[in-house]
């Protein structure tokens, strides 16, 4: 067992002195990843009950997800309808949150420190205010404008939550970007707008794509605002799942969860790929 005496740090700590840390860390990592993944085998179970490991294999819960009827008596449209609503809202959220957040980030990064100091905390306030308050506030607001249960209301609500993330991502990209390049372009004859689109944008595009993906995910996974401002035919998948979860443990949710895990991991993988290219 001589490898246990190997040095594992520059301060000459031997592997055996650190072994507990390694084991503990791997255990915590295991606890982080695995629980979400158990829903995958369960979604293929043939049984009504959630057993693990599943005793029989079937696709019935996927069938229930993809071909559910709308009279499930749970106050929302069918699963697929809810999924489409979520996708529609998430895509629209990208188109609202990303441009608005990017514009604000550019404006902020070119403003004086004093202006930045005042505006930045206001701009990230949707992250600081408890989301339940945002949700009931929006609910009240949308009632006044008859926007409850509307796609517009959902998109605005979700954009509100996604914008600070876009802002932070693009701001940090701009901080790593050498603004002198834009200045050079301007001295060489490009207007500021043109310099932004031809010089700055191509270099922060991976961050902007990340921002888009994160806007999508933020909207797609959002529960609380959806609970308050969506409903009926415009229920989101998260609202439908939450209502179903509160009442019973329907294995259909395992199938839906599996699909959601695949979507999130896929998008995460994309952001990591784009993130790596940045530097």
């Amino acid at each position: 067992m001589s490898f246990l005496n190997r040095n594992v740090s520059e301060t000459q700590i031997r592997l055996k002195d650190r072994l507990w840390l390694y084991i503990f860390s791997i255990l915590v990592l295991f606890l982080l990843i695995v629980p979400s993944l158990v829903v995958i085998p369960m979604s293929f179970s043939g049984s009504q009950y959630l057993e693990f490991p599943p005793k029989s294999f079937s696709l019935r819960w996927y069938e229930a997800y993809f071909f559910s009827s709308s009279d499930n008596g749970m106050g929302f449209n069918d699963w697929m309808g809810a999924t489409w609503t979520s996708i529609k809202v998430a895509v629209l959220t990208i188109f609202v949150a990303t441009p608005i957040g990017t514009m604000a980030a550019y404006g902020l990064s070119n403003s004086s420190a004093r202006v930045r100091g005042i505006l930045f905390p206001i701009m990230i306030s949707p992250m600081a205010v408890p989301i339940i308050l945002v949700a009931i506030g929006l609910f009240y607001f949308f009632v006044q404008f008859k926007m409850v249960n509307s796609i517009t209301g959902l998109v605005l609500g979700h954009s509100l939550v996604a914008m600070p993330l876009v802002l932070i991502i693009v701001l940090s990209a701009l901080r790593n970007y050498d603004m002198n390049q834009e200045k050079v372009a301007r001295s060489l004859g490009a207007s500021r707008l043109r310099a932004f689109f031809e010089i700055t944008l191509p270099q922060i595009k991976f961050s902007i794509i990340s921002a888009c993906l994160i806007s999508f995910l933020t909207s797609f996974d959002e529960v609380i605002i959806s609970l308050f401002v969506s409903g009926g035919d415009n229920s989101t998948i998260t609202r439908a799942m939450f209502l179903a979860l509160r009442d019973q443990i329907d294995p259909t949710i395992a199938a839906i969860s599996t699909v959601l895990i695949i979507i999130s991991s896929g998008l995460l993988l994309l952001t990591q790929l784009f993130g790596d290219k940045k530097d």
Partner: protein
Amino acid sequence: MQSNALNISINDVTKTYGDFYALKDVSLEVKSGEFLTLLGPSGSGKTTLLMVLAGFTRPDYGSVKFGNEEVVTKPPHLRDIGMVFQNYALFPHMNVEQNIGYPQKLRGKSKSEVKESVAEALSIVKLDGLGHRGVAELSGGQKQRVALARAIVFKPQILLMDEPLSALDKKLREEMQIELRQLHDSLTMTTVYVTHDQKEALTMSDRIAVINDGELKQLGSPNEIYTNPNNAFIADFIGESSLLPAKVISNKTYLGASEIMISHPSKDDGDYLLVIRPEKLFLANGKEKDTNLFSGIVEGSIFQGESQLLVIKLDPGSFGEQSLRMRLPNGSNIGQKVPISGEKISVGLRKSDSFLVE
């Protein structure tokens, strides 16, 4: 220096940030075709002035004219100037050719025109054939050349450079200084160059504008600035002078208890500084005419390659408590013994090299 390039007139340019004056009523005329260097320590305002010329910093008031045209209100992209930044600021998403061709593309030039001008610019900066390289594949010196080619490809009449050589190592920097100067001479343009390196400024410039505390302190040829600094800051900043406190009493100049000769007419009574360039001092044998003699003890004698640096503590009885630096070129003083630490010594400074500043 005959040229048709635009001259630049800067008049009363002032820029404040709160209570801080970055530029204070700066007026300066850059002649057509001239290579003018803005020299000053960091934070002196030299870069601010360059940014005012480029249009990135808007002064509080004042006028900037290119030729006869007032440009102070013009946005940067309409000023038609070439500019080279300290860190090159090449566009990493474009290759060398695209970088250099970018200003031509902006000017709506046809593909063949762009190609032709890029090739010409590449050959001017001696990078023929590297057009297809990516920016990341270039060495520091090559990046510098690309940045330069990009700034001159559209034949601007004015070229602005912000410490373009500061990121290069010493040897390359010295080569590039000479090359940049030759380039300036071969093209028709007025160049304004910013640096904090006094040696660089002395090497390259037609004239130097020394800037400090947001003010223009002195404007003159390198020779004038070096031999005739008009104040203590410049005397200290350019070259490595010893500045010794001196007194003028009824037309006579005293260093400590001794009277000394100075090159210029006597000044009004008061306190001044005697500027002594270390290389102007020589080992005296007592027979020189029109020479101030300083006696003292060698405190340090340091070999520095091409020269020997001596730190001499002057005889306190005659000159007060002060020391000065002297540089003996190595090799030219054959037969002369190099003074060593602790030795008594007498050094001379010609009257024509002795001057006072305030």
